[in-house]
């Protein structure tokens, strides 16, 4: 049985840590493996996987998650020849990839498309699941939720949930050096009152949860907790850390009784971050040039994408940027859930933001050489119905609204070995179903694992000690250039 290195601290550079902070043993980065949660992998599968293209090309991952379900036809898979009630109101414009078009509301995307791969054949048939949360949960974890609350709604997040992709990745491949392993920003995944479903480490335990930075990076953020306080030196903070451990060690029964809360793990991580100061610096967007900030866009989503790049530079393994709106929020304010109205909100509100931030991120990563080992995935939980004004999910729709459509939609990937200037897969004439090379969303997760050098079929043990595959799908090897 081949084993993925799980004990996180073991391979870290030990110098600064040894000097600055003695908070004990191996699990310095706080990724404690105290439970039954050893990561294993199936030996045969791993060795074959490693021989396939793209394996291990990426070190970091940026997940741009467009919750709400953006309309694929109006953004990256235009159908200019389809009937009016399908093609909608936007024109198609040429891109840097010859013969490929995107919607006119995405001019910047058109200019950088040669750095990316567009996958226009993402598709799945929901197992009776047509709402956002179930779809988000699948996109995040690779699994569909198996329980719903007896009160009728999807259950709120709980510790028996499957872990999200970022939690798995950052736990198996913790960052080198003291840095936040996994940051999620600027707001939680959310549908109605169900907040954060699919956005946690689930059965991996609280210690593997992302650092939730639910603040608006376009405004002044409160990150004072990450900087050493005035008058407290790094050396003193290290002494405090040692003392904290000594004091707690005298009360083993309390330690045991509260172990599930992972306070010790958090404390270790927190102290390390404070002492190193790296995170604090990464969060300081004022260090960026004004032009750079403006290029990403001076709005929540734009500055979140910029922050994602800074965090990756500083050593964070995974950054997840969630579209800053409730998934089923109001489309005329901020949400991609364009049942009531599709075109005006996309043209005037959402696409200008998406089109400033996402292309800027890819271009910026590329210019800094970060795109070589950073894989980027931008996708929503589903696309939207090709035909206008019809109900596919049981929701009501305005005459120019589009309903949920999981049967065919588009993902954008870039970096970490993913092909440049490629369109993979095709949708049919109406964008209703894949015409060729269908890709299941769980295959995209498998592809990310693969790119990060992890066999997607590796087994992780859940809270009951049961082996669970990271994801039950094959990577799409052809996506690698």
């Amino acid at each position, binding site marked *: 049985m081949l084993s993925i290195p799980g004990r996180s601290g073991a391979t870290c550079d030990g110098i600064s840590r040894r000097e600055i902070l003695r908070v004990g043993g191996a699990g310095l980065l706080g990724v404690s493996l105290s439970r039954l949660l050893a990561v294993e992998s199936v030996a045969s599968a791993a060795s074959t996987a490693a021989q396939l293209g793209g394996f291990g090309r990426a070190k970091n991952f940026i997940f741009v998650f467009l919750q709400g379900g953006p309309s694929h036809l109006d953004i990256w898979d235009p159908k200019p020849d389809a009937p009016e009630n399908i093609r909608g109101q936007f024109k198609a414009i040429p891109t840097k990839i010859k013969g490929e078009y995107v919607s006119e509301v995405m001019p910047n995307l058109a200019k950088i498309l040669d750095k990316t791969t567009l996958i226009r054949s993402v598709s799945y048939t929901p197992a009776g699941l047509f709402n956002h949360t179930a779809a988000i949960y699948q996109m995040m974890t690779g699994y569909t939720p198996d329980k719903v609350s007896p009160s009728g709604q999807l259950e709120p997040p709980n510790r028996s949930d499957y872990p999200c992709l970022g939690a798995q990745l950052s736990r198996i491949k913790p960052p080198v050096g003291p840095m936040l392993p996994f940051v999620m920003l600027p707001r939680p995944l959310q549908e109605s009152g169900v907040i954060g479903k699919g956005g946690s480490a689930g059965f991996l335990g609280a210690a593997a949860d992302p650092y939730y930075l639910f603040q608006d990076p376009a405004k002044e953020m409160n990150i004072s907790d990450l900087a050493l306080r005035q008058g407290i030196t790094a050396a003193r903070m290290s002494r405090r850390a040692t003392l904290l451990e000594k004091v707690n060690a005298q009360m083993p029964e309390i330690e045991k009784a509260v172990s599930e809360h992972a306070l010790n793990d958090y404390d270790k*991580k927190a102290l390390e971050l404070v002492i190193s100061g790296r995170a604090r610096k990464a969060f300081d967007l004022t260090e960026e040039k004004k032009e750079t900030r403006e290029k990403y866009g001076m709005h929540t989503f734009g500055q979140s994408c910029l922050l994602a790049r800074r965090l990756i530079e500083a050593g964070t393994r995974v950054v997840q940027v969630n579209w800053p709106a409730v998934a089923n929020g109001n489309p005329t304010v901020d949400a991609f859930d364009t049942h009531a109205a599709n075109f005006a909100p996309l043209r005037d509100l959402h696409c200008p933001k998406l089109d400033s931030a996402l292309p800027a991120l890819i271009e910026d990563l590329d210019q800094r050489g970060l795109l070589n080992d950073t894989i980027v995935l931008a996708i929503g939980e589903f696309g939207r119905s090709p035909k206008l004004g019809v109900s596919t999910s049981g929701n009501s729709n305005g005459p120019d609204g589009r309903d949920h459509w999981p049967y065919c939609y588009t993902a954008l990937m870039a970096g970490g070995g993913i092909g440049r200037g490629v369109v993979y897969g095709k949708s049919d004439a109406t964008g209703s179903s894949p015409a060729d090379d269908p890709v299941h969303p769980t295959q995209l997760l498998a592809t990310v694992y693969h790119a990060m050098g992890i066999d997607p079929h590796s087994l992780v043990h859940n809270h009951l000690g049961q082996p669970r595959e990271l994801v039950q799908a094959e990577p799409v090897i052809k996506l690698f250039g």
Partner: protein
Amino acid sequence: MPPARLKKITLKYDAAPAVEQGIISSGFELGLRTLVAMEASTSAKRKKHTMSNRFQRLSSFVAAFTVVMGMFAVNALAKRAETGEALPPKPAATAIESLQLEPSSLSLSDGRDGRQVLVWGVTKDGQKIDLSDEATYKVDAAFISVADGRYLNPLRAGKTNVTVSAAGKTSDLPVEVLSVNRPEMRFAKDVMPILASVGCNAGTCHGSAKGKNGFKLSLRGYDSDNDYNALVTDLLGRRIDKVRPERSLMLLKPAGVVPHEGGKALSIGSRQYEAIVQWIREGVHEEPDLATARPNQLDVLPSHVDLDLPGRSQRLVVIAKYPDGTSRDVTRDAVITSSKDEVAKVAGPVLTGIRRGEAAVLVRYEGNYAAVNVSVMGDRAGFAWSPQVEYNFIDKHVNAKLLKRKTLPAEECTDAEFVRRVYVDVTGLIPTSAQARAFLEDTTSSRQKRESLAAKLIGGKEYVDNWSNKWADLLQCNTKALGPEAVWAFREWIREEIAQNKPYDQFVYEIVTAQGSSLTHPAVNFYRALRDKDDNGKATPNKMGEDITQTFLGVRFNCNKCHDHPFERWTQKQYYEFGAFFARVNFKAGSHTGEEIVFADYRGGENLQPKTLAIAAPHVPYGKQPDVDSAHHRQEAFGRWLTAKENPLFARSFVNRTWSYYFGIGIIDPADDIRASNPPSNPELLDALTADFIQSGFDVQHLMKTIVTSRTYQSSVKTNRWNEDDKLNFSHFLPRRLSAEQVMDCVAIATGTRPRVAGLPDGMRSIYLADGLADANDFLKLFGRPKRETACECERSSNLSLAHALSLVNGPIISEAVSDPGNNIATLLTKFKDNRKVIEELYLSILGRLPTDNEVQNSGLGGDPARRLEETQDLAWALLNGPAFLFNR
């Protein structure tokens, strides 16, 4: 059962949704095209709906709901790949001494009344093992035939004996056949249950908000009129062929004879198929009296399931009882699910233990719900019960359950643990070093001094501060809804009520019947906080009805707003009838700033049923209907019903809620989600507490004293081999993170600093904040202080994350308290030259106990006078950051 590791996902692309949209028009069979056309026309009609934000929320709720229904259908049909877990092996056969049958005799009332019995094997030591699945039946073939190996169907009227054999033993079953007439099939009574059990009316199929492919049934069959018409009348009756019943679309589709998106749901010739055939052949009869067509009670045998070992199975029998006194075995059509697949799995009516634990099995049939508690014992070899000290009746019931579960309670906590625990729970504050020392040095017996301390604290000033803050949460005391003037008036009113220990029934009665000025009769502010408007901006009593049920009955009523509650007996009709009690609560501006008058509007005001637009009469969902006519206003009649001793949920829900505040989990948990499908973990305990509370005259302080003086409350957090897996039965104390306000206020007490809380004068503790969340309080927000905008206990969070840790180790709350030059560290250092004394005082003021010698040695105080201040500050910092401070334990 599927093996643990399952095959890979196969990608399947389904053309059907495209058909639905009319994008692909495949040459489907003739019926389908008509249905698609019909779907298009209904959707055109629906476009008239204005898409207000609210409606959208509603529809996505319905969509979410749809999923739920679908999930259950999926659950019932097949176990999902990723949750698939091999069943444990069957335990070895045990020697059986005799058989027992349940029931011990049968009476079959008509030709369709097939029934079964449970067959128990009794072992030498009296253990009962379910042998139903291996039992065989010897019958007199003139009287009885056996179907599916266990159903006894009558053939001739009269009395007969059936011989039941299993495990080499036999037992006689007397059976009386009253009649062999086969009554007519009726739609509501006979056909609807089949539609439900097959899944036709599930939320993902034809029960979804818009039906499927033009055919819509009510969700899980709550509306038999609608469903009858959909099948029999719609499309000129083309779904039914009375001449050739087998050619009815209603059968061709589910039997898979013609293409059916939902796949094959019925086998030709099956019992269910034949029942529908018979119903069509007899002339598609509707029930003459709908009132007796649906059962009003479900009985499940056995009433609780005790499995000694994983791998052991138990068969369930479900009997539906009808208002006319008749009953039926409906096991085959009931939907049976397990609340915890990891403890007990269900396949049809058979459940199998997976591992040690407790679960509930939920049984649903035609709008009726029943839950059966399941206990899987597992291997407890070596367990021995030892007699336990009992301080009051709580301990008796807790121990009875622990004994039954072979769980050994933890030892009693120390005096130091108790003093801190009871201070935090009762007052929201840790004891000061002086208070802790006084208690520890008191030489009276431990039990006696604990009781005196409880009596002193409960009802004291800090108790009032703490519990009025809690009630301000529950009553949604927030500026956004109430305005800056009334929010203080309401907060003070709550405080006064708690200070007087107003009997709980009176307290609630005052709130729900309140009228008058928001400033001079502040109780009215609860109604102000629950004001709500519908899509058209018109006032609706919906939030009042929902939040009042959740707050005062612990019942979540919002599901049945859109359709009958899927997991409870509550109906949509009841939702609007309940809301009708508040339809005349009206508001007008007062004459002072921030004043508003709440009054019962004598000009009228009604709540309408959304489906029929009929006026909903003010009716309660259970119990004796309040006499609205003789009351001054509807709220008064409602208030009397709500707060009556006889109301089975009023006292019970409060007692359960209060228990959850002292133990972290309710006896029913979540405490504000009481329903048949969420049974209490210890019903006897909850019953006894409820009776005692009512007996005391709804005396809240009495209830709390009873709880904290029980031995159960005084259990240590330290577990033993026999209780470390228990989180349900109160065998040891479960540590709880201090609440947002508690962390803030306790840091101030522990360090002798003045609290500084945004929104309050310097020195006032955070617990005095009248408002819900003030945005300026980043710390309180992060640590989960609620905004006070919902009735849900879940609005207050108590989790821990990296952000919390950063805030604690490096944020202002602890760091500034430790370095504050005016704190008690400075005082201690001047007062005591001896470091040991300093360390002792720190431990006492922060953890409520004296340090051990080891702790003194590991305190980091090294004896260098130049570093003394810094080292003492660091020790305080470490103590404040440890779980011993941050948790109530």
